[in-house]
C-alpha cells in the first residue's frame, strides 16, 4: 500500500518555485481559471464536500468558514494567510512557501475571487527570510503573467498580495494577534467577539487560513471536493502534511492520507527508532500538544478519532521521544518555551506559566512534594479552562497528559530518582541532602 501521497506536494522540488510557466506546465492556475467560471457558492460547495479542515491547528471546517465569510455583508474583505509557523517541531508550511508558493497564491486568489477581496497578506514568520524572498518573487511573477494583481485573467477582478514579516512571537500565529500584528501593532490576542471574520484587519471582515489550507484549494477546485475527500477518512478529508521529528530515523515532512496510524507513520514511513532505543511517548501537534504512550500508537490520524480520545492533531507535528529522555527534563523545555511566549495579558497564562516553571524546576532539583504534583494539575487545569487565548489554553497540555500517562515518573522524581539519569537533583543523586 502506498503510505504517502502527493496531492498538495506534487512536484515539490521539480519546478522553479517562482516560475509561472513551470507551474502552469504541472497544471497550475487551472483551478483559478475554473473558479472564475463558477458561482462563488459552487466553489464553496466543493470545499465543503472536500471535508477540508483548517490545517493551522484548530481544524475549523474551511468550507463553512468561507461560506460565513461570503455572507458577511461588509466590504472590503481581507484575506490573510497564516504562515507564522511558530509551533515548535512544525516546518511543513515552509515546504509550500519554498517549493510551491504559486499553489498557495492560487488558493488565496480563489478565496479572494469568491469574497471580492482586493487585498491579501501572507504573514511569514521572521525566521524564514528566504521563504519571504521566494514568495515575494512568486507574487511578482504571478502579477506579471496576469494571474494576480490588476484585472486577473481579464475578469476585471483585482487582487493584490503583500508579504508581511512576522514579529517573532509565537502568539502572533493566533488569528486575532496575527491581525493586530499585521496592522503594525504588538501581537496580542483581541477579545472576541467581534470575530475576525466580521471585524478583522482594520476592522473589516477578514478570512484567515493556514498555508496548507490554501494550498489544498486548487486541487479541490480542479478535481472536485469528493475526490479530495476520498483520500481521507469518513470524517477527515484529503491528506495532511506531517512533520516527523525527534528520535526517529527518517525525520521530515510527509504528506499522508488521513487514516494513517501513528505506528505506520513512525515505523513504516519514519523507519522506526534508532537501533536499541525504545519509544517512550509521542507528542502530537507540537509543544502545545498532548504526549501519548506507546500503547496508543494504533490510533489513526483523523480529527474525529483523535477527538474521541481527547487528543488533537494541531499543526501536524509529530515528535518521537525515546526512553533515553526524562519526562521532567522534557517538560522543562516546553515550560520555558511557553513561559517565554506568553504575551502576558491574562492571569492564568502569565502567572500560570510562571508557576509551572517553578514547579517543574522543583521536580528537577529534587525538592518537589506530592503537593506540587497536585499543584501542577491545578495550574494546568485553570490554564486550560480560563486562559484568554489558545496559547494559554494549551500551554499545559503536555504537563497534564504526561501526568495522566506517566504519573509514576513524577513520583520517582519526588523521591529523587530519575530513570533516564538526567536530573541530578542538585548534584546529590542518592537523595541525601
Amino acid at each position, binding site marked *: 500500500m502506498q503510505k504517502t501521497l502527493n496531492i498538495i506536494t506534487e512536484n515539490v522540488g521539480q519546478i522553479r518555485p517562482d516560475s509561472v510557466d513551470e507551474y502552469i506546465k504541472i497544471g497550475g492556475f487551472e483551478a483559478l481559471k475554473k473558479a472564475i467560471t463558477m458561482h462563488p457558492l459552487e466553489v464553496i460547495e466543493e470545499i465543503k464536500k472536500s471535508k477540508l479542515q483548517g490545517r493551522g491547528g484548530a481544524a475549523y471546517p474551511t468550507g463553512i468558514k468561507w461560506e460565513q465569510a461570503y455572507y458577511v455583508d461588509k466590504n472590503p474583505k481581507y484575506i490573510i494567510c497564516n504562515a507564522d509557523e511558530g509551533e515548535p517541531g512544525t516546518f511543513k508550511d515552509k515546504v509550500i512557501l519554498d517549493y510551491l508558493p504559486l499553489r498557495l497564491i492560487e488558493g488565496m486568489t480563489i478565496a479572494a475571487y469568491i469574497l471580492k477581496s482586493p487585498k491579501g497578506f501572507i504573514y511569514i514568520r521572521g525566521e524564514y527570510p528566504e521563504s519571504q524572498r521566494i514568495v515575494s518573487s512568486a507574487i511578482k511573477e504571478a502579477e506579471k503573467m496576469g494571474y494576480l494583481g490588476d484585472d486577473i485573467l481579464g475578469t476585471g477582478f483585482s487582487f493584490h498580495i503583500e508579504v508581511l514579516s512576522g514579529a517573532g512571537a509565537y502568539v502572533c500565529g493566533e488569528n486575532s494577534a496575527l491581525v493586530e500584528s499585521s496592522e503594525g501593532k504588538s501581537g*496580542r490576542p483581541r477579545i472576541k467577539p467581534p470575530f475576525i471574520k466580521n471585524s478583522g484587519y482594520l476592522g473589516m471582515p477578514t478570512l484567515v487560513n493556514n498555508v496548507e489550507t490554501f494550498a489544498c484549494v486548487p486541487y479541490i477546485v480542479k478535481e472536485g471536493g469528493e475526490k479530495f475527500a476520498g483520500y481521507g477518512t469518513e470524517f477527515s478529508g484529503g491528506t495532511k502534511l506531517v512533520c516527523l521529528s525527534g528520535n526517529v530515523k527518517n525525520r521530515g515532512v510527509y504528506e499522508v492520507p488521513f487514516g494513517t496510524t501513528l505506528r505506520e507513520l513512525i515505523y513504516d514511513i519514519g523507519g522506526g527508532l534508532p537501533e536499541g532505543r525504545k519509544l517512550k511517548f509521542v507528542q502530537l501537534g507540537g509543544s502545545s500538544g498532548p504526549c501519548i504512550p506507546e500503547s496508543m500508537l494504533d490510533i489513526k490520524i483523523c480529527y474525529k478519532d483523535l477527538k474521541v480520545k481527547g487528543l488533537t492533531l494541531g499543526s501536524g507535528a509529530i515528535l518521537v521521544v525515546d526512553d533515553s529522555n526524562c519526562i521532567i527534563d522534557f517538560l522543562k523545555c516546553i515550560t520555558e518555551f511557553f513561559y517565554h511566549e*506568553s504575551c*502576558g*495579558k491574562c492571569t492564568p497564562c502569565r502567572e500560570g506559566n*510562571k508557576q509551572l516553571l517553578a514547579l517543574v524546576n522543583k521536580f528537577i532539583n529534587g525538592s518537589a512534594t506530592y503537593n506540587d504534583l497536585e*499543584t501542577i494539575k491545578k495550574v494546568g487545569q485553570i490554564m486550560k*479552562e480560563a486562559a484568554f487565548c489558545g496559547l494559554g489554553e494549551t500551554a499545559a497540555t503536555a504537563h497534564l497528559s504526561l501526568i495522566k500517562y506517566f504519573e509514576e515518573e513524577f513520583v520517582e522524581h519526588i523521591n529523587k530518582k530519575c530513570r533516564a539519569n538526567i536530573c541530578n537533583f542538585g548534584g546529590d543523586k542518592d537523595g541525601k541532602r
Partner: protein
Amino acid sequence: MVNVKINNIPVSVEEGSTILEAAKKVGVEIPTLCYHEDQSVKANCRICLVEVKGAKGLVTACSTKVTEGMEIYTNTKKARDARKTVLELILASHPMDCLKCIRNQKCELQKYAAEFFIEELPFEITYQMIEKDESSPAIVKDLSKCIKCGRCVEVCQSIQTVGAIAYSHRSDEYRIATLFELPLYETVCVHCGQCSLACPVGAIYEKSEIEKVWRALGDPEMHVIVQTAPAVRVSIGEEFGLEPGSIVTGKMVTALKMLGFDKVFDTDFTADLTIIEEGNEFLQRLEKGGPFPMFTSCSPGWINFVERFYPEFIHNLSTCKSPQQMFGALAKTYYAEKIGIPKEKIFVVSIMPCTAKKYEAAREEMKSSGVRDVDVVLTTRELARMIRESGIDLKKLPESEYDLPFGITSGAGVIFGASGGVMEAAIRTVYEIVTKKELQKLDFKDVRGLEGIKEATVNINGLSIKVAVVNSLGKARELLEKIKKGEADYHFVEVMCCPGGCIGGGGQPIGTVNRVRQERIEAIYEVDRNMPIRQSHKNPVIWTLYEEFLGEPLSEKSHNLLHIGTVH
C-alpha cells in the same frame, strides 16, 4: 428581553446584557477586576468565571452575553475553585503590603482576598519589586502592585487620548510602561490622575502631601489657611460612607477647623472673580475680534494637554489663572496686607478634586506674590485621610460657615465644579453686563451634564455667541481637530480635562464612575439653586476686593496677580 436562570432563579434582562449584569439583577455579585463599568470589556483578569449549562468549560461573566434560556451557575464548586485559583495566582505575584498601602480598605483585590479568605497560598511567591516612579508631582506609579488589568491604559489612551502609558513587553515582564520607560514626568502625561481613579489596586495613586500640611499646622509661627474647591463638598461625604451626591459643605468646614486651619475659605470666591476677569477678557476679545475661540483655562490638565499636543492654540486660552491660583495670589498679597501677616508666614493649602492641581501649583509662573502662591494641594482623598487620621467622623459633625472675606460666594462659583458650569456662570454675568438687563432665567441646561461635547448659541444684544462645552481630553481633541479643519467656529469654549468636569476629577474618591458623577452633578446644581446669590457679579465681596485692592477688572494689578502674561 432575554430570559435566563441564575443559580436556578429566573431573571429577565435586556438583550445584550452580560452574565455579570444579569447576575447583579438577582443580587449575585460576581468578582471582577479588569471590568470597569464605564470601559470596554477586556476579559484579561479571568476572575469572573462561572459555569453555563452546555458550554465547553468555564466562561467569563464580564464578556459573555446572555442568550435566551441560558442556565448560569455562579456558585458550583468548579466555578468557585476556579475563581479562587485565579485570585491565588494574582496574589502569588503581588506584594500583599496592605497595611502600608494607600488603598488599604479601598482595594478591589484586597476585598476579594478578604471574601475568599486564602489562609495559605498554594503557589510560589513570584512578585518582583519594581522601583516606584515618583517623578510626577501629582501621581505615583508603583508597578509592583499592578495586576495588569489595563483599566488605566484605557483611560489614558481612549478617554483622555494622551497615551502616556501603554502595554509593553510580554510574559513575566508584561507591564504598563511609558514610552522608552521614561519617568512619567518626562512623558506627555498631563497629570490628570484619571488612571489613579481607574486602578483597582494601589498601583497608581495621588502623591500624598499630607505630611507637609501637618507640619505647617503644627508650626505656631504659621498662619495656615485652606481653600476648598467647588466639587469637593459634593464628593467627600462618600469617603465617610455617605451616598454619592451628599452635600457636606458645612460639615467639611467644621472638619477643617477641627484639623487646625486658621481660616477656611472657599475657592468659589475666586471662581466668581474668574468670571469677572474672564468675562471681561471675552468682551475685550469680542471688541478686538479675537482670537477665537477663547478657551477656558481653569483646568490644569487641559492646559498641559494644549501645551503638549496643541501649542498652536495657546493664544486661544484665556489668560486668566485658575481660581485656585487666583486665590493663592490674593491670599499672599491682599489678604496678607489686610490681616498684617507677612506672606512668608502664610501657608496656603488647597483641597482639590484634582491631581493636576498639584502640578499647577508647582509651576514657576505661579509665584505672583513673590513666593509660591499655593503651598500644598491636597486631593479630596488626602483630606479624607487627614480627617480619618484625626478620628473625626465627618457624617456626625455639626455644620460651620466659611470664614470671611473669601467665604461669601455665589451659585455661579459653585457650578464651576461640573462640566458646563464655567460657561453657565459666564453667561449669567456677561449677558447682564452687556445688555444691562436682568436675566429672566438663570439656568442654562443645554450646557449641563456628562455628555462629552455640548453646544449652544446665546443671543446677547443681537449678537449670536456660539459656545461649546467639552469634558474629557479625548473630546477636547475631537473638538480641536474640528476647529483646525475649519468645521467649527465657536466664540467661547469651556474645556474640563476630566469626564464630567471637576466632580469627576482624578483626585476624587475611589469609586468615581459615571453613575456617581451624575449624582454629584445633581448635587452641585442643588447647591447652586439654594444659594442666595447666583451670579458672580452680584457677589458684593468681589466689588470690595476691586475697590480696596485690584482697581477694576483687567487692571494692571489684576494682570500681575490673576493672569498669565507670557506663558500661554
